[in-house]
């Protein structure tokens, strides 16, 4: 039997690593994309030692959208039929940090949103004829409501969630599941120096992600309580929301 084949974009990120490890321990074939050569090769050797049957890597910056087709082609080359593609790259900036640097603000949107739409769409097209597979994308609970402290980041995640909802309708009949992963704050290097309440471990979030992919869920709040927190947050009237300081 062919081993599970998994593509991970942003493979050196804090959440992607434990997810990739879970697949490695199942003996999966992994195709990893990241932009830091040393971190990428370290990740690859780690996954091999943890049981991956094969690991291929590709060094690429996701902002370089002309290379997106190349990424998909190389991934297909390694995996043949792709069982799972996890799009996990992203950057976090508080609004305050980019408020006066609009170029930087747009760059954040490009990394978190534009490049994700491009990759998700291209992988969708490439997987269309497979009749099976999962396109899983890490968005955020921050994408559900606009908040003064985090609105560019929130908007970038909202854009992706919206896009995925549409994609899901298109790909569902073709047997391809589109999963929107919405974590709360996770203890990863992305959040270094930003103390948070209710912070989850990356391992716990990764376990949830793998479970959601296995079971064919299309929306995941992780850890689980965010589902209920967000159900309440969605009900807050805008006239109150705009007065909130966070």
């Amino acid at each position, binding site marked *: 039997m062919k081993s599970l084949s998994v593509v991970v974009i942003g493979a050196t990120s804090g959440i992607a690593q434990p997810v990739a490890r879970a697949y490695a321990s199942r003996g999966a074939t992994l195709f990893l994309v990241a932009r830091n050569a040393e971190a990428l090769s*370290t990740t690859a*050797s780690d996954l091999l030692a943890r049981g991956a049957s094969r690991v291929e890597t590709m060094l690429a910056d996701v902002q370089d959208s002309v290379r997106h087709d190349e990424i998909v082609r190389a991934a297909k080359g390694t995996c043949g039929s792709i069982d799972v593609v996890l799009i996990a790259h992203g950057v976090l900036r508080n609004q305050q940090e980019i408020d006066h640097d609009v170029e930087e603000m747009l760059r954040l949107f490009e990394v978190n949103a534009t490049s994700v739409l491009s990759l998700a769409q291209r992988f969708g097209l490439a997987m269309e004829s497979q009749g099976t597979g999962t396109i899983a994308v890490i968005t955020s609970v921050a994408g559900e409501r606009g908040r003064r402290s985090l609105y560019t980041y929130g908007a970038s995640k909202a854009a992706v969630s919206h896009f995925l909802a549409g994609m899901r309708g298109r790909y569902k009949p073709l047997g391809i599941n589109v999963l929107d992963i919405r974590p709360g704050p996770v203890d990863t290097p992305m959040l270094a120096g930003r103390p948070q309440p209710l912070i989850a471990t990356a391992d716990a979030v990764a376990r949830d992600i793998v479970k959601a992919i296995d079971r064919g869920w299309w929306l995941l709040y992780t850890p689980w309580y965010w589902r209920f927190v967000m159900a309440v947050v969605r009900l807050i009237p805008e006239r109150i929301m705009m007065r909130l300081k966070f």
Partner: protein
Amino acid sequence: MEQSPTSWGRYPQSHAACIVDAAWAHDVDLSRYQSVIAYGLGRSYGDVCLNDGGTVLRMHRCDRILSFDRQTGVLRAESGLSIADLLRIVVPHGWFVAVTPGTKFVTLGGAVANDIHGKNHHRVGTFGRHVRSLGLRRSDGHEHRCSLTENQELFQATIGGMGLTGVITWVEIALIPIASRQIEQESLKARSLGELIRLTDESDDEWDYTVSWIDVMQRGASLGRGLVMRGRFHEQVDGTLSGPWKGPLLRVPVQGPSWLLSPLTIKAFNAVWYNRQLSRLSRTNMDLETFFYPLDGVERWNLLYGQRGMMQYQCVVPSDGGEDTMRRILSTMQGGGISSFLAVLKKFGTLTSPGIMSFPRPGLTLTLDMPITGRRMFDALDQCDRIVHGVGGRVYPAKDARVPAAMFRAMYADVIDRFEASIDPAMSSSFWRRVTSSTKAIS
């Protein structure tokens, strides 16, 4: 502000000025720090892993395996990899760590920096003997590859070097082959210290792993009565290697009240523990986790010691006259009102470590956990130091939170100058400042 890292004894209290999580071992840049110490999983008991007022560089995220040869059992990994995580990967392929401490929640970096030992010291020596090479990031901006043939002095200073020679970025170790996860264990009852030491000597010839638990609450002829435990891996392949790992069974939710581990409860516990085994000899087969890591089943058990925390005292004294020395140490502790339910005696073998500051020496080693009580306890331990030093013995920095500077220098007088030459100027720790603060000599 994040909570400052603590050591396992939760004593002394310490406040790091800055806590940094290293994401990648290859990214560690020491030029940014004036005073920094690497921190793994905080299982050392005293202050070797603390840096009051300085930077603590947490390494637990740097846990990638860089290579693992399933045929030869050579594994290289970033220094933040825990033994727990490592075992999950190597045991199914028939490998085990050559040296393991009593908990699997230690990192490779910590194992090297403290040059840890296990129940098989008499067979294989310390952890450092099984390190083939390591990477050391220094404040000169370079990562130095160190082994017995390359940067040898730095290699030897780093093994048992308490993290002071730089930040250990990766470690390459040689594993040992095992055919099964099952351990054949025997437990022998010893009615006195003399009998216990004699049984240990006998056991060391035949068994790979030996250790004794002693009841330190006994006086007179029964002083040092206890159980000698000896074990070895099953040599037959029995299909257990890919068996499951246990998660923690319990988690101590909050700090315990101070009466919980008081002399009275400890005395009662010890009596029960000693008398639980009725026969002189008990034989059992058990999984390696039960044998090596009995306390790992209870997460955060150190909180049971309550607000004031606990301390561990570990010393080694020469075998010649060792029984008499142990008797003096134990009586001194009793005189100081020290009570312990985790008192362990072990005989170190003659295999030497490459580590300059490595603690083990041939002889008897005694380890006691104790709740921190007060002045009397500290005075008694000072007295124990003098007994230990008097016979040419020493205490273990990884467990220490109190040895006076002059005493430490005296105990390590033969090696400390050589070691100091390899310390990186950017590295420091609460421990090191404490033991180098005074120059008053001890003769």
